[in-house]
């Protein structure tokens, strides 16, 4: 295996679910050794359905299998004296600790950052929680739904006359995990130069502000409130449209009138050649009319036809892609985006591949570990579980 970007970096992952483990996933893919410390009952994501045949199995959760690619797994009972000793020892020997325990929990066990720093001054400890290590909400509980709601983002999604809708799956926590990955590497970069690490306090509520910038800025400058707009585009010729075999996405290039002209020509709507449509404000006021005029062209075509025809005219068209669309995408195939990975319990499956391509250092797609699979390797004579 050619040298990878993070070869030689050792990471301890004392985190469950999505955010912390996704940070670990990214580090492992880039070559870091990531040792995942699980309670004896395993990461809770091992219990997240849907399972094959709807039969729960700790080694067969799609969420766990994907998030924990390329890692080692050891088990540890943290709330015992021996467990704490072992964690201290493990943390002394790594470059990065990713953890998501409730604020103050590690301190209460005598193995908070201060203690770990004494043992390992270069340690980078990234603490990931819903609300951060301090503040009136720091002991509050949160799930994906609550994080999205309190980020401000959810306000913008959904139909105007209904409850707001959260993005599907666990996207917010994937986002937080991606940030934790970046933050860990920033701190590590400095630690390698100075020999001194630090603690990084990541609050999901704050981290998600990266996606909420527009709402915040528009409020600060102009007291504008975000309005939910549903699927209908408001700029004329934009938004989601039902087509023959799914849902197409039409749009024009931001701030570029010629692109609207191309859209009008492509969708064969003569009326839209009227000079009145040159004005973006006019288009905005008449967006419903414009959308009605282009509907016949869209409804008679497939999503693929619409996508490629639009792109051929340099229009940012697309379509609502599901898993099958992604797997069949000629672009993703040409990029060799999907990879096959074998696993002792579920066999060979297809997984998403690298988040980005680097010219010197490859990505490696390893498999998820079995629970406690690496106890012997990591603990050696010491024994697992802190017993």
């Amino acid at each position, binding site marked *: 295996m050619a040298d990878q970007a993070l070869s030689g970096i050792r990471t301890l992952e004392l985190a469950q679910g999505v955010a912390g483990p996704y940070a670990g996933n990214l580090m492992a893919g880039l070559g870091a050794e990531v040792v995942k410390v699980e309670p004896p009952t395993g990461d809770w994501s091992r219990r997240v359905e849907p399972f094959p045949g709807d039969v729960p199995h700790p080694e067969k959760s799609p969420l766990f299998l994907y998030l924990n690619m390329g890692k080692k797994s050891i088990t540890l009972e943290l709330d015992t004296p021996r467990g704490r000793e072992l964690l201290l020892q493990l943390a002394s020997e790594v470059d990065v600790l990713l953890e998501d325990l409730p604020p103050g929990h590690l301190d209460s066990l005598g193995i908070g950052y201060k203690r770990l720093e004494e043992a390992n001054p270069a340690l980078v400890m990234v603490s990931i929680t819903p609300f951060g290590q301090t503040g009136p909400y720091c002991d509050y509980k949160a799930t994906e739904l609550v994080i999205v709601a309190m980020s401000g983002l959810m306000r913008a999604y959904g139909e105007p006359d209904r409850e707001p809708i959260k993005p599907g799956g666990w996207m917010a926590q994937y986002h937080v995990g991606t940030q934790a990955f970046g933050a860990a590497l920033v701190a590590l*970069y400095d630690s390698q130069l100075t020999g001194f690490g630090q603690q990084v306090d990541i609050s999901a509520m704050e981290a998600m502000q990266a996606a909420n910038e527009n709402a915040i800025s528009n409020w*600060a400058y102009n007291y504008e409130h975000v309005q939910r707009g549903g699927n209908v585009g408001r700029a004329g010729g934009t938004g989601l449209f039902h087509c023959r075999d799914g849902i197409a996405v039409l*749009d024009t290039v931001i701030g570029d009138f010629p692109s609207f002209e191309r859209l009008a020509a492509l969708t064969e709507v003569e009326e839209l050649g009227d000079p009145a449509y040159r004005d973006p404000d006019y288009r905005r006021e008449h967006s419903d009319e414009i959308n009605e005029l282009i509907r016949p062209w869209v409804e008679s075509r497939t999503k693929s036809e619409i996508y490629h025809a639009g792109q051929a005219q340099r229009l940012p068209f697309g379509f609502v892609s599901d898993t099958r669309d992604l797997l069949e995408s000629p672009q993703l195939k040409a990029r060799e985006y999907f990879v096959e990975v074998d696993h002792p319990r579920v066999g060979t499956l297809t997984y998403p591949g690298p988040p980005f391509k680097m010219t010197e250092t490859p990505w490696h797609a390893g498999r998820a570990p079995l629970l406690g699979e690496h106890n012997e390797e990591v603990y050696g004579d010491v024994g697992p579980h802190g017993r």
Partner: protein
Amino acid sequence: MARKGTKTTAGALRNVRIVDLTQIWAGPLSSKILADMGAEVIKVEATRRYDNARNYGSLPNDQLGERPYNRRALFNNRNRNKMGVTLDLKTDKGKAIFRDLVAISDVVMENYSARVMGNFGLEYDALRNVRPDIVMISMPAFGRTGPEKDYIGQGSNLTPLAGMVAVTGYQDSGPQQIGAYTDPVTGVSAVGAVMAALLYRQKTGRGQYIDLAQREVSARFIGEAVLDHGLNGRIGGPQGNRQAGMAPHGCYPSKGEDEWIAIAVSSDQQWLDLCSVTGHPEWADDPRFSISSERLNNQDELDPLIAGWTQQRDKYEIMPLLQQADIACGPVLTAEDLVDRDPHMEARGFFWKTSVPDAPDLGVHSIPGALWKFSKTPATLRSPAPRLGEHNDLVYGELLGISDDLEALETEGITGTEPLVREGMWLSGQP
């Protein structure tokens, strides 16, 4: 190599200099994060082709002002802590100066469409000749290779194409779009990508080129759906605000116009506590709801009952009540809530206060601060977003040591502080 610095910071990335050609959202978000962490970011625009985010978005009280291109909310928030120069890369002199900048920098960031950097003669192979260990990152919509590499991606089409929209929406009406979701995902991902390359360079002395395709990095956010398909033969669809294994789970109306509270109950104990704190013990005895398997099946009957209670109370009143019972619960917050009302954001000091030189009418206002709290090298606000070409003299004069030519460069239009494009929609009152 001795480095003539224009700024010294105590940040974690104080030794990193970045030449930043990125525009709009994804790229500038990533360079903003790096700048916040102490990197010296030189944002390179051109008077004929400056960051389009200077052309749209909120203006202070909708007023164009004298220099609207220095007054846009989105641009200003996203480009703080960066220096700004202008440089016409179509000219030989402009290219030469750019190469001089690269020679003293660690990273080049760009998110132009496929052919632009090559057309300038400033693609990675060319820049590598100038500085062999340069780290360069591009953030193309679909990647720098493949049959669709020249396709146009904006957040509005990339988000559905990444698979994110197919799994989002009300259960009774199908997929819902979620705006330009892929932009910030790309931005935060680029931070890690650049840092991984810098760490590798720190170890080996070797730079490299990173091709970060926006659609690819975003599709990874729903990777478990690919596994579900392979393992179970399923194609997932929208789940509304529901979550397998949890009930009640959703977004309920609270007191006021368009106000909502999110509640997620994940155990029978929490359910009992919810019945107790809401003053509805009869719900706990109801066989439709008493155990989780029943509750999960009867959510259509349960949700209106919950809503009946929540809609009489303020969202900020409900949250602490349920949180005291260890129930995950939180209001759907607005920007106004976050900036002006929320006690936790206030206590955490998340928002920074700044003012913008060309927006005296705006005065001091809040901008999102540091995304992460570093215990030893915290992010700080060093400067507001640069005015167009604001740091030309500083960067070209002091950093590059170009002494005599500065005025000539401006006269020739290679640099400058005012846009050369004046007519049409670019400077219209388009908010």
